[in-house]
Protein backbone atom coordinates (compact mmCIF):
# COMPACT_ATOMS: atom_id res chain seq x y z
CA UNK A 1 0.00 0.00 0.00
CA UNK A 2 1.36 3.43 -0.79
CA UNK A 3 0.19 6.88 0.15
CA UNK A 4 -0.14 9.75 -2.26
CA UNK A 5 2.90 12.01 -2.13
CA UNK A 6 2.68 14.98 0.20
CA UNK A 7 1.86 17.93 -2.07
CA UNK A 8 4.13 20.22 -0.04
CA UNK A 9 7.06 17.80 -0.12
CA UNK A 10 10.35 19.21 -1.40
CA UNK A 11 13.09 16.89 -2.52
CA UNK A 12 16.83 16.72 -2.94
CA UNK A 13 18.59 19.80 -4.14
CA UNK A 14 15.66 22.11 -3.49
CA UNK A 15 15.53 20.97 0.12
CA UNK A 16 19.29 21.46 0.50
CA UNK A 17 18.94 24.98 -0.84
CA UNK A 18 16.07 25.72 1.55
CA UNK A 19 18.10 24.35 4.49
CA UNK A 20 21.11 26.51 3.54
CA UNK A 21 18.93 29.60 3.34
CA UNK A 22 17.13 28.78 6.60
CA UNK A 23 20.48 28.27 8.33
CA UNK A 24 21.30 31.87 7.42
CA UNK A 25 18.07 33.02 9.06
CA UNK A 26 15.75 33.09 6.04
CA UNK A 27 12.35 32.48 7.60
CA UNK A 28 10.57 32.11 4.29
CA UNK A 29 12.84 29.15 3.52
CA UNK A 30 12.16 27.70 6.95
CA UNK A 31 8.42 28.17 6.40
CA UNK A 32 8.73 26.08 3.22
CA UNK A 33 10.52 23.36 5.22
CA UNK A 34 7.78 23.49 7.86
CA UNK A 35 5.13 23.05 5.18
CA UNK A 36 7.06 20.13 3.72
CA UNK A 37 7.62 18.27 6.98
CA UNK A 38 4.83 19.26 9.37
CA UNK A 39 2.61 16.32 8.44
CA UNK A 40 5.29 13.68 9.04
CA UNK A 41 6.35 15.35 12.29
CA UNK A 42 2.72 15.47 13.42
CA UNK A 43 2.14 11.84 12.40
CA UNK A 44 5.11 10.69 14.46
CA UNK A 45 4.08 12.89 17.40
CA UNK A 46 0.56 11.50 17.22
CA UNK A 47 1.87 7.95 17.26
CA UNK A 48 4.13 8.66 20.19
CA UNK A 49 1.81 10.64 22.45
CA UNK A 50 -1.64 9.61 21.21
CA UNK A 51 -3.54 12.70 22.24
CA UNK A 52 -4.07 14.97 19.19
CA UNK A 53 -3.80 18.24 21.14
CA UNK A 54 -0.60 17.17 22.81
CA UNK A 55 0.68 15.97 19.43
CA UNK A 56 0.02 19.46 18.02
CA UNK A 57 2.02 21.01 20.85
CA UNK A 58 4.83 18.49 20.32
CA UNK A 59 4.87 19.29 16.59
CA UNK A 60 5.03 23.02 17.21
CA UNK A 61 7.75 22.68 19.85
CA UNK A 62 9.78 20.24 17.73
CA UNK A 63 9.71 22.58 14.73
CA UNK A 64 10.75 25.54 16.90
CA UNK A 65 13.60 23.47 18.34
CA UNK A 66 14.56 22.54 14.80
CA UNK A 67 14.76 26.22 13.84
CA UNK A 68 17.02 26.94 16.80
CA UNK A 69 19.23 23.92 16.12
CA UNK A 70 19.30 24.34 12.33
CA UNK A 71 22.63 26.21 12.25
CA UNK A 72 24.19 23.05 13.75
CA UNK A 73 22.56 20.70 11.20
CA UNK A 74 25.42 19.44 9.04
CA UNK A 75 23.42 17.29 6.67
CA UNK A 76 24.98 13.98 7.78
CA UNK A 77 21.48 12.54 8.09
CA UNK A 78 18.42 13.40 6.07
CA UNK A 79 16.44 16.34 7.39
CA UNK A 80 13.44 14.09 8.03
CA UNK A 81 15.55 11.70 10.16
CA UNK A 82 16.96 14.65 12.08
CA UNK A 83 13.44 16.01 12.62
CA UNK A 84 12.28 12.57 13.82
CA UNK A 85 14.95 12.62 16.52
CA UNK A 86 13.95 16.10 17.65
CA UNK A 87 10.28 15.04 17.65
CA UNK A 88 10.97 11.96 19.78
CA UNK A 89 12.96 14.01 22.29
CA UNK A 90 10.29 16.70 22.37
CA UNK A 91 7.52 14.14 22.81
CA UNK A 92 9.44 12.59 25.66
CA UNK A 93 9.87 15.98 27.40
CA UNK A 94 6.26 17.02 26.81
CA UNK A 95 4.90 13.72 28.12
CA UNK A 96 6.92 14.07 31.30
CA UNK A 97 5.69 17.66 31.68
CA UNK A 98 2.10 16.65 30.93
CA UNK A 99 2.26 13.86 33.51
CA UNK A 100 3.40 16.32 36.16
CA UNK A 101 0.44 18.63 35.45
CA UNK A 102 -1.92 15.84 34.43
CA UNK A 103 -5.62 15.91 34.86
CA UNK A 104 -7.08 13.08 32.79
CA UNK A 105 -4.68 10.43 31.54
CA UNK A 106 -3.15 11.10 28.17
CA UNK A 107 -2.63 7.40 27.72
CA UNK A 108 -6.25 7.10 26.71
CA UNK A 109 -5.34 7.08 23.11
CA UNK A 110 -7.46 8.00 20.21
CA UNK A 111 -6.99 6.15 17.02
CA UNK A 112 -4.73 7.78 14.49
CA UNK A 113 -6.91 9.09 11.69
CA UNK A 114 -6.75 7.37 8.38
CA UNK A 115 -3.96 8.56 6.14
CA UNK A 116 -4.60 11.36 3.71
CA UNK A 117 -5.64 10.85 0.17
CA UNK A 118 -8.05 8.51 -1.58
CA UNK A 119 -9.32 5.35 -0.02
CA UNK A 120 -6.49 3.20 -1.35
CA UNK A 121 -8.65 1.20 -3.76
CA UNK A 122 -5.69 -1.06 -4.52
CA UNK A 123 -5.48 -2.26 -0.95
CA UNK A 124 -7.06 -5.56 -0.10
CA UNK A 125 -9.74 -5.47 2.57
CA UNK A 126 -7.79 -7.96 4.61
CA UNK A 127 -4.77 -5.70 4.74
CA UNK A 128 -6.86 -2.72 5.78
CA UNK A 129 -8.45 -4.80 8.50
CA UNK A 130 -5.03 -5.91 9.75
CA UNK A 131 -3.84 -2.29 9.69
CA UNK A 132 -6.84 -1.26 11.82
CA UNK A 133 -6.27 -4.07 14.30
CA UNK A 134 -2.60 -3.20 14.39
CA UNK A 135 -3.30 0.45 15.20
CA UNK A 136 -5.61 -0.59 18.02
CA UNK A 137 -3.07 -3.09 19.37
CA UNK A 138 -0.32 -0.46 19.22
CA UNK A 139 -2.50 2.02 21.09
CA UNK A 140 -3.03 -0.54 23.84
CA UNK A 141 0.66 -1.19 24.39
CA UNK A 142 2.21 0.47 27.44
CA UNK A 143 3.73 3.78 26.44
CA UNK A 144 7.39 2.75 26.58
CA UNK A 145 6.75 -0.42 24.59
CA UNK A 146 4.71 1.45 21.98
CA UNK A 147 7.51 3.94 21.49
CA UNK A 148 10.19 1.32 20.88
CA UNK A 149 8.01 -0.54 18.39
CA UNK A 150 7.25 2.68 16.52
CA UNK A 151 10.88 3.72 16.44
CA UNK A 152 12.28 0.31 15.50
CA UNK A 153 9.64 -1.44 13.44
CA UNK A 154 7.90 1.53 11.83
CA UNK A 155 10.79 3.98 11.38
CA UNK A 156 13.73 1.56 11.38
CA UNK A 157 15.85 3.15 14.11
CA UNK A 158 18.77 1.17 15.53
CA UNK A 159 18.73 -0.11 19.11
CA UNK A 160 21.46 2.41 19.94
CA UNK A 161 19.44 5.33 18.58
CA UNK A 162 16.38 4.21 20.54
CA UNK A 163 18.42 3.79 23.71
CA UNK A 164 19.94 7.25 23.33
CA UNK A 165 16.64 9.02 22.69
CA UNK A 166 14.87 7.22 25.55
CA UNK A 167 17.82 7.59 27.90
CA UNK A 168 17.99 3.85 28.58
CA UNK A 169 20.66 1.24 27.92
CA UNK A 170 20.82 -0.64 24.63
CA UNK A 171 20.03 -3.86 26.51
CA UNK A 172 16.97 -2.26 28.08
CA UNK A 173 15.83 -1.08 24.65
CA UNK A 174 16.21 -4.62 23.28
CA UNK A 175 14.33 -6.16 26.20
CA UNK A 176 11.54 -3.62 25.89
CA UNK A 177 11.26 -4.29 22.17
CA UNK A 178 11.20 -8.05 22.73
CA UNK A 179 8.35 -7.71 25.23
CA UNK A 180 6.47 -5.22 23.08
CA UNK A 181 6.51 -7.48 20.02
CA UNK A 182 5.46 -10.48 22.07
CA UNK A 183 2.54 -8.55 23.51
CA UNK A 184 1.61 -7.14 20.12
CA UNK A 185 1.54 -10.63 18.61
CA UNK A 186 -0.59 -11.90 21.49
CA UNK A 187 -3.05 -9.01 21.29
CA UNK A 188 -3.40 -9.39 17.54
CA UNK A 189 -3.96 -13.12 17.85
CA UNK A 190 -6.64 -12.59 20.46
CA UNK A 191 -8.32 -9.91 18.36
CA UNK A 192 -8.46 -12.04 15.22
Amino acid at each position, binding site marked *: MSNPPDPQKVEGEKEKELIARAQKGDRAAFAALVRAH*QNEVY*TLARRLVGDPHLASDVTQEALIRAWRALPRFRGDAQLSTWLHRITVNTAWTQKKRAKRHAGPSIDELTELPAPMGPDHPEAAGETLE*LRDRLRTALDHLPEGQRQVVIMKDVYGWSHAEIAESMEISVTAAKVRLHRA*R*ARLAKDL*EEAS
Partner: protein
Amino acid sequence: MSLLCEISAPFVANSAVDESEVVRPLRFHTGSCLRCQARHAAMSKTARELHAMSAERSEAPANMEWRVLSSLEGDLAVARSWRTPIAVVAAVVSMTAAVLIWRLRPRTS
Protein backbone atom coordinates in the same frame (compact mmCIF):
# COMPACT_ATOMS: atom_id res chain seq x y z
CA MET B 1 -1.71 -25.84 22.42
CA SER B 2 1.39 -27.04 24.21
CA LEU B 3 3.42 -25.35 26.88
CA LEU B 4 6.29 -25.21 24.40
CA CYS B 5 4.13 -23.16 22.04
CA GLU B 6 3.55 -20.63 24.79
CA ILE B 7 7.22 -20.51 25.74
CA SER B 8 8.15 -20.10 22.09
CA ALA B 9 5.55 -17.39 21.30
CA PRO B 10 7.63 -14.28 22.17
CA PHE B 11 10.69 -15.69 20.39
CA VAL B 12 8.62 -16.59 17.35
CA ALA B 13 7.20 -13.04 17.25
CA ASN B 14 10.65 -11.47 17.46
CA SER B 15 12.25 -13.78 14.93
CA ALA B 16 9.44 -13.03 12.48
CA VAL B 17 9.96 -9.27 12.74
CA ASP B 18 13.77 -9.48 12.66
CA GLU B 19 13.74 -12.17 9.97
CA SER B 20 16.10 -14.17 12.14
CA GLU B 21 16.02 -17.72 13.47
CA VAL B 22 14.31 -18.67 16.69
CA VAL B 23 16.73 -19.26 19.58
CA ARG B 24 18.38 -22.66 19.30
CA PRO B 25 16.70 -24.53 22.22
CA LEU B 26 13.25 -23.84 20.73
CA ARG B 27 14.15 -24.33 17.09
CA PHE B 28 13.34 -28.03 16.98
CA HIS B 29 9.84 -27.41 18.33
CA THR B 30 9.03 -24.36 16.19
CA GLY B 31 10.38 -26.10 13.10
CA SER B 32 7.81 -28.87 13.40
CA CYS B 33 4.88 -27.12 15.11
CA LEU B 34 2.16 -25.91 12.76
CA ARG B 35 0.76 -23.53 15.34
CA CYS B 36 4.13 -21.80 15.84
CA GLN B 37 4.63 -21.62 12.09
CA ALA B 38 1.22 -20.00 11.70
CA ARG B 39 2.13 -17.49 14.40
CA HIS B 40 5.41 -16.79 12.62
CA ALA B 41 3.60 -16.17 9.33
CA ALA B 42 1.06 -13.88 11.01
CA MET B 43 3.78 -11.83 12.71
CA SER B 44 5.77 -11.55 9.47
CA LYS B 45 2.71 -10.01 7.89
CA THR B 46 2.34 -7.68 10.87
CA ALA B 47 5.98 -6.63 10.51
CA ARG B 48 5.40 -5.72 6.87
CA GLU B 49 2.36 -3.67 7.88
CA LEU B 50 4.33 -1.90 10.61
CA HIS B 51 6.98 -0.95 8.11
CA ALA B 52 4.36 0.22 5.63
CA MET B 53 2.93 2.53 8.30
CA SER B 54 6.04 4.70 7.99
CA ALA B 55 4.63 6.01 4.73
CA GLU B 56 1.32 7.09 6.30
CA ARG B 57 0.74 10.75 6.94
CA SER B 58 -1.82 12.44 9.17
CA GLU B 59 -2.56 16.04 8.43
CA ALA B 60 -1.10 18.51 10.92
CA PRO B 61 -3.48 21.21 12.19
CA ALA B 62 -4.08 23.82 9.51
CA ASN B 63 -2.57 26.64 11.57
CA MET B 64 0.67 24.80 12.39
CA GLU B 65 2.85 26.91 10.10
CA TRP B 66 1.41 30.10 11.62
CA ARG B 67 1.92 28.74 15.16
CA VAL B 68 5.56 27.93 14.50
CA LEU B 69 6.40 31.14 12.68
CA SER B 70 4.67 33.36 15.22
CA SER B 71 6.70 31.66 17.97
CA LEU B 72 9.83 32.48 16.02
CA GLU B 73 8.70 36.13 15.93
CA GLY B 74 8.64 35.97 19.72
CA ASP B 75 12.18 34.58 19.71
CA LEU B 76 13.39 37.38 17.47
CA ALA B 77 11.61 40.04 19.53
CA VAL B 78 13.39 38.79 22.66
CA ALA B 79 16.70 38.76 20.79
CA ARG B 80 16.08 42.32 19.52
CA SER B 81 15.10 43.57 22.98
CA TRP B 82 18.52 42.46 24.28
CA ARG B 83 20.50 43.81 21.36
CA THR B 84 20.65 47.50 22.40
CA PRO B 85 21.53 46.98 26.09
CA ILE B 86 24.21 44.46 25.12
CA ALA B 87 25.71 46.94 22.63
CA VAL B 88 25.74 49.73 25.25
CA VAL B 89 27.36 47.49 27.88
CA ALA B 90 29.93 46.26 25.35
CA ALA B 91 30.80 49.86 24.42
CA VAL B 92 31.17 50.93 28.06
CA VAL B 93 33.35 47.90 28.86
CA SER B 94 35.55 48.55 25.82
CA MET B 95 36.01 52.22 26.71
CA THR B 96 36.78 51.40 30.34
CA ALA B 97 39.32 48.79 29.26
CA ALA B 98 40.95 51.27 26.86
CA VAL B 99 41.22 53.91 29.57
CA LEU B 100 42.65 51.42 32.08
CA ILE B 101 45.21 50.14 29.59
CA TRP B 102 46.25 53.72 28.79
CA ARG B 103 46.51 54.71 32.48
CA LEU B 104 48.40 51.55 33.45
CA ARG B 105 50.80 51.55 30.54
CA PRO B 106 54.46 51.24 31.51
CA ARG B 107 56.20 54.60 31.48
CA THR B 108 59.76 54.63 30.25
CA SER B 109 60.89 58.16 31.34
